[in-house]
Each structure stands twice: as structure tokens, then as C-alpha cells.
């Protein structure tokens, strides 16, 4: 009588263990997955911190930088806000400094033109005045989709560069190192945007590309021959 009863308890305990295991296993899996994701995110953060040293140098002379955020009129226009910033005289560093400040956003977050989680990954300036700005994926994924919102984002970047970095003639936007067809489904990123038609590039590398041809450079032409004439840029089957 006692032995079977003991065995009954044993069986019940076993079954209970099975049930607990069945419940606990998925929870454990979920926890492990979450932990893995968390680790991935912190790696991403660490990478960003490594690739993005603080570019602001307080010893640089403070200048009145003009940063273009939304005008607040809800009509898709951007307006300049003057900010005292210590800016480097070196154009690439200067561009990084103003773009990072632009990404950080205005005091009134309602007037943001770029998503808060977007980051500038790299910035290059070619001798002919073509700037290549490489942004993180968040710029494309977190921006509100639409012609107005996307145009506003590009406007704020282009006008800020034009106002603060006189060496930039035109600008090409990359997303995580890739050429994109559109920013978020509307605005054309396959071409370079005119920043400043009167730009004074560092070295005039015989750039035959007139100010009007800048906007029309095709991606292929931009990559291969940045100072290409419009007819060269057009050669595509």
C-alpha cells in the first residue's frame, strides 16, 4: 500500500516537473534571445562610439553657425537658427561638426527635420566640391515617409552645408555606405543635390561640370567621373 502510494507521488512529482519544464522552457528561450539582442545593441553602440569621436573641439574659434531646421510653419520650409559653435577650419571636420549638431536637433524637438536616432557615419569631400555624406540606416527608416518630410530633411542638410562649409558644391547622400534609390520611398537619392553653385572647392581639378550639371549626375557618373560633363553622365543605354 505504501510503496504504490510513494510511487504515485513520485509520478506526480515527475509530471509536475515536466509541466514546469514545459512552461519554463519558452520563457528561458525568450530570455536568451533578449539577452542576445541586448548584447548586439550594445555592440552597435560601442561601434558607433568608436567611429564617432566627439568632433567638437572647444579650442576652435567660436563662430555663428547657421543650422536649418523646420520653420514651424507646417509648410515644408526650413529656416536658419544661429548657434555659437566652435568650428574647425578644415572643411571635412567642419562639415561633420555642423551635421552632427544638425542631427542632435533643435531645442524645440517639434522642429526636427532628421530622426533623432540617425547618425552621420562618414563624410568625404572630393576635390571638385562634391561631398559624400554617409548616414546610418535610421535616417531612411525612421524618417516620416512623404515628399514633404523627405524634401525637408534633404533641404535642412543641404542648406546647413551651404551656409557653413563654403567648399561644398554638391552633395550625395549614402545610407550605411549604400547608394539608395530613394530616401523613404519618395525623394530621389540616386542623384547629387546642389548645395552651393558658387562653392569654392579646395582644388579646382578642371571641373568642367557646370553648376547646372551638378544635380543631374547619375550615380554611375558620380562614382566614376565626378567632374563629368552632362553628356557623359547621360550616356546610359
Amino acid at each position: 500500500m505504501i510503496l504504490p502510494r510513494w510511487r504515485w507521488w513520485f509520478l506526480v512529482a515527475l509530471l509536475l516537473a515536466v509541466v514546469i519544464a514545459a512552461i519554463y522552457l519558452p520563457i528561458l528561450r525568450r530570455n536568451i534571445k533578449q539577452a542576445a539582442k541586448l548584447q548586439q545593441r550594445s555592440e552597435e553602440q560601442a561601434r558607433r562610439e568608436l567611429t564617432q569621436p566627439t568632433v567638437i573641439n572647444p579650442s576652435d574659434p567660436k563662430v555663428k553657425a547657421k543650422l536649418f531646421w523646420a520653420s514651424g510653419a507646417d509648410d515644408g520650409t526650413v529656416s536658419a537658427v544661429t548657434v555659437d559653435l566652435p568650428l574647425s577650419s578644415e572643411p571635412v571636420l567642419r562639415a561633420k561638426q555642423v551635421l552632427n549638431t544638425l542631427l542632435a536637433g533643435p531645442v524645440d524637438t517639434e522642429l526636427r527635420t532628421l530622426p533623432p536616432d540617425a547618425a552621420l557615419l562618414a563624410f568625404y569631400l572630393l576635390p571638385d566640391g562634391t561631398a559624400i555624406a554617409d548616414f546610418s540606416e535610421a535616417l531612411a527608416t525612421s524618417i516620416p515617409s512623404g515628399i514633404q518630410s523627405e524634401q525637408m530633411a534633404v533641404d535642412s542638410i543641404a542648406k546647413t552645408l551651404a551656409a557653413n562649409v563654403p567648399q561644398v558644391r554638391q552633395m550625395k547622400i549614402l545610407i550605411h555606405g549604400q547608394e539608395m534609390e530613394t530616401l523613404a520611398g519618395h525623394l530621389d537619392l540616386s542623384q547629387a543635390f546642389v548645395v552651393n553653385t558658387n562653392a569654392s572647392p579646395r582644388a579646382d581639378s578642371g571641373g568642367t561640370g557646370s553648376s547646372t550639371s551638378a544635380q543631374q549626375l547619375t550615380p554611375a557618373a558620380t562614382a566614376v567621373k565626378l567632374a563629368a560633363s552632362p553628356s557623359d553622365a547621360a550616356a546610359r543605354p
Partner: protein
Amino acid sequence: MLLDVGRFIRKSIRETFSMAVLVAAFFAALGAAAPSAGQGGAPAGAPQTQPQPTATPPAASATATQNVTPAQAGLNIVVLDPAHGGTDLGARGTGGIHESDIVLEFAAQVRTALEAQGFQVVQTRQGNANPSFDDRSAMANAQRGAIFVTLHIASTGTPGTARVYVMNDMAAGVDATGLIPWDRAQAPFVSLSRKLGDNVQALLAQRFKGSPAAVQTASVRQLRTTAAPAIAVEISSVTVEDRTQLDHMVPGIADAIARGAAAFRPSYVLPANPGERP
């Protein structure tokens, strides 16, 4: 009775253990299957992107219109483009509103208004397909005497307003053959697009207070490769709490596009040969 049961257990104790192991294995499998089923849920939508029958509907409708295109010269076709579609939902509102769905429904009403003005309407997509930008442009570029209207709902802007966009000025590409390069197909048409855009925007401004008075420029990807007077109409916005707010705008939008296009008719003189600049 109890003794019977005890004996039964004693006999089948090994079987019970193996059963318990089996049950444990079953639950473990269930636990493993459940999360993977959950993960499978998301990519389940992905197959929608893979079958790309997008080429078929445009081709089919393009040939259909070619067959019915009358020989008369002048503007008589409107290529109407409900933007996005398929897995590309476009702008998304907090209330579960998707740009891709709404523009498709709106296109039907715009189409009716255009047909009332005597236009033939070619739609770049009928259902929930997502033709490429080039596919959509190609449908307009294959027509003679067509204009192109792409419909959008914005994520921003004052709700209840609407804006018309045209491509910024582009230098016309010079091709050795004298043909218009695909990359810059819109270049020779920019001034005509602006005229059409101004027509439509003026009508929209009358109807929807707060809308700009004149057409705006933006480098819209869809317009760049379109070799026809082309405009993008963007309505604000998907952020409305109630979709009916947007629905109420459609008759006004449809009317503005149809009347704007009709008023544009005399301005659009077709070039003598296909492929020539206007």
C-alpha cells in the same frame, strides 16, 4: 481496486517513465515550435514580395490602352499612379492608415472625374501590386499625348491640405542619338509639368484652405524618369485620427486634378515625332 492499480503501475512503471520522457520531449518540441512559429509570422508576409507579377499587370494594361488609343493628336491620356503598393505601405499613420491602400481607393474616384473630362485613364496598378518606379514611368513613356499624375498621402503637413510637386529644373541630357535619356526623361517636360501643376494647385488652394497657392518643387524619384508632363499630388496626412477626414477630401482632389488637366490641354502641343522634345 487500489492494489490492482498498484500492480498495474509496478508492471508498467518503465512504460510510464518512457511516457514521461516522451511528454517532456513533446512539450520541449512545443516550446521550440511556438517561438519559431511566431518568428515565421513576420516573414510570412515576405512571400508577397517574391512573386513579382508586377510586370504583367502594367504590360497588360499598357497594351490594352495602346489598342484603344484613338489616332487623334493632343492630350487625351492620363496615367494615374497610386503610389507604393504590395509590401511597400508608404506613409503609415498611428490609426493603422496606410498610404498604399488609400491612394488606390482615391485613384478610382480621380479616374472617374478624369473620364468625365474626356480623358482616357491608365492606372499603373489596379490591385495591391508594387511596380518599380521605372515600370510606372514606362507606362507613361509608352503613351503619346499623356500626362502623369502620382498620388500620395503625406506623414506631415497640416491635415486637410494638399500640395502639388514637380521635379526641380534639370539640365536636359544630350544623347548622341537625339533621344531623351531615361535617367533624365523629365528634363524637357519640367516647364510643362509646372504649368500643369500650377493649374491643379490653384484649384486645390481654392478648395483646401492652407494649401500653397503655387506648385512646389522636389526631386521626386517617380517624376524623374517620366517623359511627360508629370506631377505628384500629396495630401496631408496619414496622421488624421479618423480616415473619413481624408475621404472627404477626395471629391475636391479628384475635381482639381480633372479640371486642372482639362485646362492644361491647349498648352500641351505634341511633338511631331515620338521621342522628340515637346
